[in-house]
C-alpha cells in the first residue's frame, strides 16, 4: 500500500468522486469527450433579452431550466447535479448521509429583478416605486420564501440537507478562485485529521443581464458577438476579454488511508495548494507578478515538489489581455525556460469563465487529463501573442505523459490560488 502520509507527514488527500456540469453538457463523460474534441459551449444568449448589451453571448447552461430560471435556482440545480454525480461515483456513506463537511464555492447571493418586479407590480403604477414602498409590502408572510431564497447560506443549506454532510457547511467566495479555495478548505480539514472525507462543490449561474453589464462596465468581457464559439481565445494576440459562463463542479475528497480502507477507486491526488493575496489593485494584478509567483511557489512548496516535476498547467487563461499576460509572467518566472515547453492549456477557450465554479471545474478537467493522459486544447488559437510563448496545446487535444498537473485561478480582489494534482501520491 502506498504511503498514506505526504512529505510533511500529513494525510495524503485523494479524490474519489467527481461531478461536473458546464455549457458543454452534464456529467464527466460528456464534458470530457466534447472538451477533448475542442468543442465550444459558447452561444448567443437566449435566456433573456440582450438588446442594448455590449456582449450578447455566454457559456450558458441552456439545456437545464427551473421554474423561475433565476440565478439562485439555476446555481442550486447545477450544484445538485454535480454533487449527485460525485457522491454516486465515490460510493461513499449512505444515501443522504455523507460522512464529512461541505465546502461550497458560490457566487454572492442577491435578490433578483424578478423578485423586485413582483413586488413593484403588486404596488401598481399609481405610485412611484421606491424601497420604502416595497418595504411596506414585504412583510406579513406573503413573500416568506424569498427570505430563505436570498440568504447567502441557503445554497449550502440545501446541499447539506440533501446529502447529509456533517457540521456547519462553509460557503466561500474568493471571486474567480473560489473553486480552488473550496477544495483547499477540504484538503486542510483532512490534513488536520478532523475528518476522513469532505465534499467540495463549486457552482455559478451568473448569466443574467446585470452580471453581464457589471463586467462590461469594467471592460472585462469579449464583445466578439458575431462568432460566439470563437470569442474566447486565451493567449491569442486578438483576445479581447473573457466570456461569462455557468457551471458546477463537485469533488469528494478523502484521506488516502480511508479511501484504501473502504476499497474506493482513487481518481487522483490533491498534492498541494497555494494562495497569496495581491494588494495592488481591486481588479488588476501587481505589475511585478510577485503575488502570482508567490502563489505558484506556495503550491509547489505545499506539495513538496519542484517546477521540474510539473508536466501540465491548466491555466486560468481567461482571454483578457491583462490576465493572460500576467499569468505568463508568473509561470515563466517560476518555471524559467521550461515555461515555453510545458503544455499550458485553457479550458475557458471552450467553456468560458465559470467564475466561482472555475477552480473546481478546471480541477476536474486536470484530474481527467491525468486519468486519460490526454491534454485538452486551447481552441481559437490562430493568432499567437508573441509576448506569451506558451505551448498552449493549440486547437487539438494531445496525448501526453502527465504525472502532475497544476491548475491556477486568479480573481478580483487580489485573489490567487493554485493547486497541484497528481495521479499517484508524490
Amino acid at each position, binding site marked *: 500500500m502506498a504511503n498514506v502520509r505526504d512529505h510533511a507527514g500529513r494525510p495524503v488527500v485523494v479524490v474519489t468522486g467527481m461531478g461536473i456540469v458546464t455549457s458543454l453538457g452534464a456529467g464527466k463523460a460528456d464534458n470530457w469527450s466534447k472538451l477533448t474534441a475542442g468543442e465550444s459551449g459558447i452561444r448567443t444568449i437566449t435566456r433573456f*433579452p*440582450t*438588446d*442594448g*448589451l455590449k456582449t450578447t453571448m455566454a457559456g450558458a447552461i441552456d439545456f437545464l431550466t427551473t421554474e423561475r430560471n433565476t440565478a439562485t435556482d439555476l446555481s442550486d440545480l447545477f450544484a445538485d447535479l454535480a454533487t449527485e454525480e460525485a457522491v454516486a461515483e465515490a460510493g461513499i456513506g449512505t444515501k443522504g448521509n455523507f460522512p464529512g463537511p461541505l465546502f461550497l464555492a*458560490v457566487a*454572492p*447571493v442577491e435578490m433578483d*429583478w424578478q423578485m423586485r*418586479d413582483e413586488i*413593484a407590480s403588486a404596488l401598481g*403604477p399609481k405610485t412611484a*416605486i*421606491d*424601497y*420604502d414602498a*416595497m*418595504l411596506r409590502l*414585504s*412583510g406579513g408572510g406573503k*413573500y*416568506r*420564501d424569498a*427570505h430563505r431564497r*436570498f*440568504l*447567502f*447560506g441557503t445554497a449550502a443549506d440545501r446541499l*447539506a440537507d440533501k446529502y447529509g454532510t456533517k*457540521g*456547519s457547511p*462553509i*460557503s*466561500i*467566495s*474568493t*471571486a474567480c478562485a473560489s473553486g480552488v479555495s473550496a477544495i483547499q478548505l477540504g484538503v*486542510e480539514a483532512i*490534513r488536520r*485529521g*478532523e475528518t476522513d472525507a469532505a465534499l467540495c462543490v463549486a457552482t455559478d449561474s451568473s448569466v443574467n*443581464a446585470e452580471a453581464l*453589464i*457589471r*463586467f462590461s*462596465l*469594467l471592460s472585462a468581457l469579449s464583445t466578439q458577438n458575431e462568432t460566439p464559439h470563437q470569442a474566447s481565445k486565451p493567449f491569442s494576440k486578438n483576445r479581447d476579454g473573457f466570456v461569462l459562463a455557468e457551471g458546477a463542479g463537485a469533488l469528494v475528497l478523502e484521506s488516502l488511508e480511508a479511501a484504501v480502507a473502504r476499497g474506493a477507486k482513487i481518481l487522483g491526488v490533491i498534492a498541494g495548494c497555494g*494562495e*497569496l*493575496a*495581491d*494588494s495592488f489593485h*481591486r*481588479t488588476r494584478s501587481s505589475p511585478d507578478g510577485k*503575488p502570482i509567483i508567490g502563489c505558484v511557489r506556495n503550491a509547489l512548496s505545499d506539495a513538496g515538489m519542484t517546477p521540474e516535476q510539473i508536466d501540465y498547467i491548466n491555466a486560468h487563461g481567461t482571454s483578457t489581455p491583462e490576465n493572460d499576460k500576467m499569468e505568463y509572467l508568473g509561470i515563466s518566472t517560476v518555471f524559467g525556460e521550461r515555461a515555453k515547453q510545458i503544455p499550458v492549456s485553457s479550458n475557458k477557450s471552450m467553456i468560458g469563465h465559470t467564475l466561482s465554479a472555475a477552480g473546481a471545474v478546471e480541477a476536474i478537467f486536470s484530474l481527467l487529463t491525468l486519468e486519460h493522459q490526454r491534454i485538452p486544447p486551447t481552441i481559437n488559437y490562430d493568432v499567437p501573442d508573441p509576448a506569451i510563448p506558451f505551448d498552449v496545446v493549440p486547437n487539438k487535444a494531445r496525448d501526453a505523459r502527465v504525472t502532475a498537473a497544476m491548475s491556477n485561478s486568479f*480573481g*478580483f*480582489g*487580489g*485573489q490567487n490560488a493554485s493547486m497541484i494534482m497528481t495521479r499517484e501520491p508524490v
Partner: protein
Amino acid sequence: MSDVEAWITGIGLVSSLGEGLDSHWDALQNGTIRADDKTFAPYVVHPLASLNFDQQIPKKGDQRQMEAWQRIGTYAAGLALDSAGIKGNADILGRTDMIVAAGGGERDLAVDSAILTAKVQGNAAPGFLNERLMGDLRPTLFLAQLSNLLAGNISIVHGVTGSSRTFMGEEAAGIDAIRIALARIASGQSDIALVGAAHNGERKDLLMLYEFGDFNLKDQFAPVWSRGPNGGFALGSGGAFLVIESRRHAEARGAKPYAKLAKVVADRARRGTSGNIRETLETLWTQVGADPSRSAIITGATGAEPATGEERAFLANHAGTAVRATATRFGHTMEAQFPLGVALAALSLSRGALFPPSDPSGTEIAQPSSPTQIVVVGTGHWRGEGMALVEAVK
C-alpha cells in the same frame, strides 16, 4: 497533530457605541444603547457612530471605491492591526492569513427605484432594463458589492496578503471564520490570522430581505430578552476584527494577549423540528467544555423567533452562569455578531470583569466574581449555531 495555543493579540471594534476598546468598555459600563427608531421607521436600527475614516483609510480614492460595509470593515481591521502592533509590519502582514465573513454590498437604490417605477408604468420594452443599467450603474459599484472585496480592500489599504478567504452565510459565516482560523493555527497550518466581519445595518435593501421573513424589530427598541412572542431583530452597523496568533509567534515578537482562544465549535441544527436548536446548543456546550464555576456567557442571540426562545430555554438550563446579549447593546450585526462577541469576551477577560447587565427581564444577572472563561454563543436567526471558549491568560 499537536494543538498549538492561540492567543487573541489584537481587537478592532467599531459600532453604534463608538470605536476602539476604551470607548466600548465605557459604553458597556454605562449601559449606553444607541438605537434609532426614526430614520428607518418603523424599523429600529443601531446606526454607526460617527467616524473619521481618514484615520484608517488615508486615501480618499480608496474610500470612494468602497460602500459603507467595506469602509466599516477596513476601518475595524486597521484598528485590530494597530492593537496587535503589526500595522505597517510588511514582513508579518505578508504572511498574515485573512478570513472575512461577509454579506454583500448595497444596491443603488435610486437606480433600482427609477427602473421599477418606469417598468410598472409600462416602459417595459425588451432591453429597457439593460439600457438603464448600462447607463446608470456606476462602473465601480460592482466592486463595492462583491463579498470578497472587503478582504480585497483590507489587502490594499493595510497590506494583509498572506491569504484572503471570504466566508458567506449570515451569522454562521462569522462563527466559521473564527473556527477555521483557530483550527489552522492550532494545527500549525497558520501562525497568525486577521479574522472578522463588518455589517452596515442602515440599508433598506437588507431591511427588505429580512422583512420578507418578518424578522425586523418595529416601532420601539426593547432589550433582546423582552421582545415578546414574535421577537425580531434591530439591524446594527459595526465591524469586529481580531488578530489571532500562535502563542509562540506572539511571544517571539513580544506581543501581549488579550485572551486565549481555546476552542470554537459549530453545527447546523435541523430547524424544522422544534427543540433542535436547544438540543444543538446543549451538545455544543458539552463540546466547548467550559467550567461553569468560573465562566460567563456572551451571546449574539438575535431576538428572532423561534431561535432566541430556544436559546433562552438552553440558557435557563445553565442559570448559574451570567449572560450578556450583544444584540441589546449593538443591534444585530449579522456576520459580525460572533466576532463581536469574541472581541468583547477577550476585552472583558483582559479587564478582569464582565460588563454589567442591561435587561429588566432577569435573564441577565449581575456577576459578582470575575470570570476567567467566557463562552461566546452564536445562534443564527435562520441557521447555524456555534460557541467559542475564550480564556483569561494568567
